[in-house]
């Protein structure tokens, strides 16, 4: 019956399950499903680049007649046709984190990506007193997610003529790439004051570069998103100044809950936004991380 999608199954479609961020969330999906007695199956497109693969996977789970789909789209618009196909065939689709551009989508649970990085920009502006050289390691180029975060950050900085982005590069989310790029940036811009990083793995690469360059914690301000074990450690050690988190696991749980409700014919809110908050060394122990890991 492994094969038989007996009526009680939720399919969670992730663009890159390998990413720590999604690892973090996956337990949220599964546990929430268990609570309601649903079987949760996680599908991985194997990278944001594999939109086509994700579309195929969605078609396949429509075949399986799963009760509901939780979708983190590899592309907001690329997934529209297949999502509408799912909904038309009676399978509710809940977006988690990234929205699919279709009115038909059953519901959206999410973090305001744009706002999140605005918060980081604000933090830096405040720390640097509104002036200083900044470099960005913006994450994988060509993704909607990347785009939102970069825009949020840059648009906010635009308010401060003194704060210049002197170099930015799209890199894979591999720490190794980030490390190499950051070393190069440090060469070209010895005076750099702050670094924006797309996520944890990239931040780690950056920190390694700073270490290699003989910098002390705090010499260069590093900001990132999400909260992983290592990020937390690096914040405590003072290498990373700030990260912005929504509540990935809470989101995951909400998404599955909404999905199940919809599957059972209950009416659900179109949009459920989670709380985004900046975490710094001073708040890292204080802040409520309940949304960060599974009980």
């Amino acid at each position, binding site marked *: 019956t*492994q*094969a*038989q*999608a007996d009526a009680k199954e939720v399919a969670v479609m992730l663009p890159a*399950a390998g990413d720590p961020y999604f690892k973090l969330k996956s337990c949220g999906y599964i546990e929430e499903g268990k609570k309601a007695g649903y079987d949760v*199956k*996680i*599908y*991985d497109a*194997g*990278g*944001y*680049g*594999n*939109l*086509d*693969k994700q*579309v*195929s*996977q969605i*078609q*396949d*789970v429509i*075949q*399986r*007649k799963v009760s509901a789909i939780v979708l983190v789209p590899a*592309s*907001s*618009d*690329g*997934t*529209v*046709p297949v999502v509408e196909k799912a909904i038309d065939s009676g399978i509710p689709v809940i977006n988690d984190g990234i929205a699919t*551009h279709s009115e038909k989508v059953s519901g959206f649970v999410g973090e305001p990506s744009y706002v999140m990085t605005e918060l980081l920009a604000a933090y830096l502006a405040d720390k640097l007193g509104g002036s200083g050289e900044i470099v960005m390691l913006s994450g994988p*180029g*060509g*993704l*909607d997610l*990347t*785009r939102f975060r970069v825009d949020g950050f840059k648009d906010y900085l635009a308010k401060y003529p003194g704060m210049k982005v002197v170099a930015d590069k*799209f890199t894979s989310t591999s720490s190794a790439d980030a490390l190499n790029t950051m070393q190069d940036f440090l060469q070209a811009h010895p005076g750099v004051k702050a670094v924006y990083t797309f996520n944890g793995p990239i931040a780690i690469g950056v920190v390694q570069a700073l270490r290699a360059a003989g910098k002390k914690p705090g010499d260069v301000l590093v900001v990132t998103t999400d909260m992983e074990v290592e990020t937390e450690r690096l914040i405590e050690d003072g290498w990373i100044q700030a990260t912005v988190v929504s509540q990935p696991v809470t989101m995951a749980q909400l998404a599955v809950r909404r999905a199940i409700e919809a599957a059972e014919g209950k009416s659900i809110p179109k949009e459920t936004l989670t709380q985004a908050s900046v975490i710094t060394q001073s708040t890292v122990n204080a802040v409520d991380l309940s949304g960060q890991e599974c009980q």
Partner: protein
Amino acid sequence: MSASNTNGSRAGAALTGMASRIDPATVGPAAALALMFIVYSVLSPHFLTVQNITNVLVQSAPLMILASGQTFALLMGGLDLSQGSIVSLVSVVTAGVMMHFGLPLGAAAGLGAGIGIGLVNGLLVGRARIQPFIVTLGMLYITAGAAMVVSDGSSIFGLPRPDVDYFFWFGGGFIGPVPVPTLIAVILIAAAHLVLTQTRIGRHVFAIGSNEQVAVMSGIDVGRVKIFIFLVSGGFAAVGGFMLSGRVISGQPLLGAGDILLQSIGAVIIGGTSIFGGQGGVLRTVIGVLVIAFMVNGLNLLAISTFAQQIIVGAIIILSVWVNTLQRRRT
């Protein structure tokens, strides 16, 4: 004379692949395919349904087309590494132009761009005489970069109606029960097969892949043939990219950045076309593509965890070819 006639017909058969006896190279992959069908049908009630088979055929249409083009490159003993990037470029150019000038112009621009890249590949390989691997590796980066620049690194959506609906038609529409993408794929494959087996330039592709020096000595304009080869490979990639974009009704700068290149080359070789050129054909490639497509589809239906999937996929690839090597033992 009778002898010569039988010869003739037998040659015809062998060459056109409509051989009375099946092409030995395809035994392995065909067996793998059959086995998958049996196993999957037993394990999943959803597998052997008209709907699902149709899905897979639609899903795999773009790969069919890319791999058919790729077959030309491999037959001459080369590779086309730029196909993935071409898919991306075609996607964003088509959508970008379509946004303001509608589908016809969008399609023209997109396909034109893809074919253009193919032409550049061809000229660099055929005239500047740089090896295909290097040329297409370079063009892989150049074209991917171009796709990013054109789209400013973000996907292009909100395409105007009604064009967008026609656009989708190419990627997922139907004519009666027949899916459009599959139809297009079949037509292109048939054309490619005809060219390779029945036309002069097609045979010259084999000759070059078989022994380039001899091809030259036989008075074949090798450069011209190579240009043709990369035009086909690039052109087919362009059509595939157009289809994929239609399927997701948007322009995606990363549309071809994923697995698709590896799958395109993999399918050709799994099908039994030699990497060293001179032996193979698009019909073999079709089988290679089917192996890949159904393999993954079945694993999804069985909800095998993605990580485990990768392992199984790898195993199937190796096994499907191993069978062949078992056949030819002797000398």
